[in-house]
């Protein structure tokens, strides 16, 4: 595994978009904030999009109120600037969907049970909205010159791959031939589906009951229009994600599950031709290097108190070794990587965020 210089990466002026991807619980949100802060120190004009930050982190970033629009974070000594915003999925989805209907219809749509389910529970909605927000911010950055780097914390999900798959899942749903039958839209070339679709309609009606089935039709008509509107931007955003103006950082923790997921994600990004910049292994145990000869000398003369410190050191070494074993699925892939030490006591303010980037172990 080759080490990567994070500062050098953040200095690359052609890099306009940095995405932190990985499973839940590995510290994506915190790392996104820390990277954005560091980039601002290095002179970049940054906007960071975070999703559901811890309260103390939000306070540290000045996001204590609900900042759904980019809000400046005061950084007196930075060469650049930092704006931060929280992505409220529900709010953004609401805006996008109800923009497609007349105002008087909007309330009825919001009360529709299918609309509620889709905006709250459907895996794919969050990713879709995040993707839409990325596109919107890059267009704004280009038009106004307010930012030259967008840092994105991706939504928490069961599988890290959801960020890539979610949006197309939502689109597939909108282009679903069955859905078109239910709506009475032209079906395209799949005439043979007709018999099956009739059965399907019958079954749905039987399972859901008439009232819910009626709600469904109403909802789908709006949904289809909204997804078509989304799609007009999606291609542009996808092209940007695949270009060398973008960079993906795969975030992992030194445990078997997250490490394997991160490895799968690295392979997937490579297969899709997306610009993977580095793997960040977060929350690692940092171990001071001491030779075994020196330890043997120390152990032979140590008193009780010194033995306590030496014994703790031994446990730390063992833990570090176990972590290295656990991240092997990732290290095997020969991706530039950065190891970041665990921060004792967690993060409480901007200073500790800066120290986090300082804890990079090459």
């Amino acid at each position, binding site marked *: 595994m080759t080490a990567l210089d994070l500062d050098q990466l953040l200095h690359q002026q052609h890099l306009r978009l940095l995405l932190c991807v990985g*499973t839940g619980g590995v510290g994506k949100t915190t790392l996104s904030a820390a990277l954005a802060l560091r980039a601002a120190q290095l002179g970049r004009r940054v906007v960071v999009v975070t999703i559901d930050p811890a309260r103390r982190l939000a306070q540290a970033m000045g996001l204590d109120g609900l900042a759904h629009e980019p809000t400046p974070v005061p950084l007196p000594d930075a060469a650049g600037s930092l704006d931060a915003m929280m992505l409220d999925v529900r709010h953004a989805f609401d805006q996008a969907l109800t923009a497609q209907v007349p105002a008087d219809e909007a309330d009825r749509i919001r009360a529709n049970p299918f609309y509620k389910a889709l905006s709250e529970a459907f895996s794919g909605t969050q990713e879709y909205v995040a993707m839409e927000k990325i596109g919107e911010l890059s267009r704004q950055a280009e038009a106004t010159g307010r930012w030259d780097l967008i840092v994105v914390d991706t939504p928490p999900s069961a599988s890290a791959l959801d960020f890539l798959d979610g949006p197309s899942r939502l689109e597939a749903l909108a282009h679903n031939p069955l859905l078109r039958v239910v709506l009475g839209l032209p079906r395209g070339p799949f005439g043979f589906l007709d018999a099956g679709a009739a059965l399907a309609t019958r079954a749905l009606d039987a*399972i859901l009951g008439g009232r819910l089935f009626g709600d469904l039709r109403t909802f789908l008509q709006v949904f289809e229009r909204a997804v078509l509107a989304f799609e007009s931007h999606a291609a542009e955003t996808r092209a940007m994600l695949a270009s060398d103006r973008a960079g993906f950082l795969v975030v992992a923790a030194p445990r078997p599950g997250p490490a394997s997921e991160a490895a799968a994600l690295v392979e997937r990004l490579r297969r899709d031709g997306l610009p993977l910049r580095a793997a960040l292994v977060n929350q690692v145990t940092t171990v001071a290097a001491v030779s075994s000869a020196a330890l043997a000398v120390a152990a032979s003369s140590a008193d009780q108190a010194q033995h306590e410190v030496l014994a703790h050191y031994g446990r730390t070494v063992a833990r570090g070794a176990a972590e290295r074993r656990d991240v092997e699925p990732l290290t095997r892939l020969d991706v530039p990587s950065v190891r970041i030490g665990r921060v004792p006591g*967690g993060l409480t303010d901007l200073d500790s965020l800066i120290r986090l980037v300082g804890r990079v172990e090459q």
Partner: protein
Amino acid sequence: MPATDSRSTPAYAGRMPARCPLHIVTGKGGVGKTTIALALALRLSRTGARVVVAEVEGRGGLALAAGGPVGSKPAQLLPTRSGRLEGVQIDAKASLSGYLQRYYRLGFAADLLQLDPLVDFATRIAPGLRDILLIGQVTHLTKTHPGIDALVLDAPPSGRIASFLGAGAGLAELTDGSPIGEQAVSVMDDLRDPGCRTHVVTLLEELPVTETIETVAALRELDLTLGTVVANRCLAAPTVPDPLPPAPAGIASEQWSAMTAALLADADQANGQNAWEALLVHRTALAVTRVPDTDSAGHGLSVLADHLEGL
């Protein structure tokens, strides 16, 4: 286990089919939910029982933890010294098929399932339908497999658990009178059975603790029986000599100060964990079971199972 609990037997005798206990395990993403579900199943199997761990939504964590594929029929997951530890994957598609066959005797159900769009559609978009099908399949397992002594569900993460387990309540309201509405009502009854308990896995850190407190409140709102809160990856507080000793012979002072700083940091973290535990107990009024940060390789699971003995 001795049958000392007089509540559970007579109330259901003759009214409901005998069923095995169901342990639902949830927690914030990344806290080690799947590992704890497996450890709990291992602990339950030690009495010679046949225990099945069920995973929903095809998240694959179970297969990863067990080092092999998990299929749609219960099959051995890990070798055990006594009892059996099996895994099963509960899939929305198979659940829909099972549901259609069980309740409708729909001859065309099989053909229908070849229509992927329908399955996608029905199981993804209809509010709560997918969840009802999945839970329905799980509770079905507790009733229809007399050979299973206990079922452990590796459930969706805590951010989604209340809407997952509460799907029945919402759906029942929307679909009053329709067949799926009846299914929704019966699923909620099953989940409120005293034999079904929900455990929340957490880490003793700010975000997971906050989410656990919210989750417990939401589950209480649904009238579900709570089990215990399992605090994963707990550190044993290291002994810190006072005053800190000087560097022994052979160790440079710079190295020694790094070593003592690491010791102090771990002691701090252990103290911080105690504070978060106290807050958890205070806010949830539930017992917190601490399990250590084990080396994941080798016998780690067995060590975790030892610590779950009281559950």
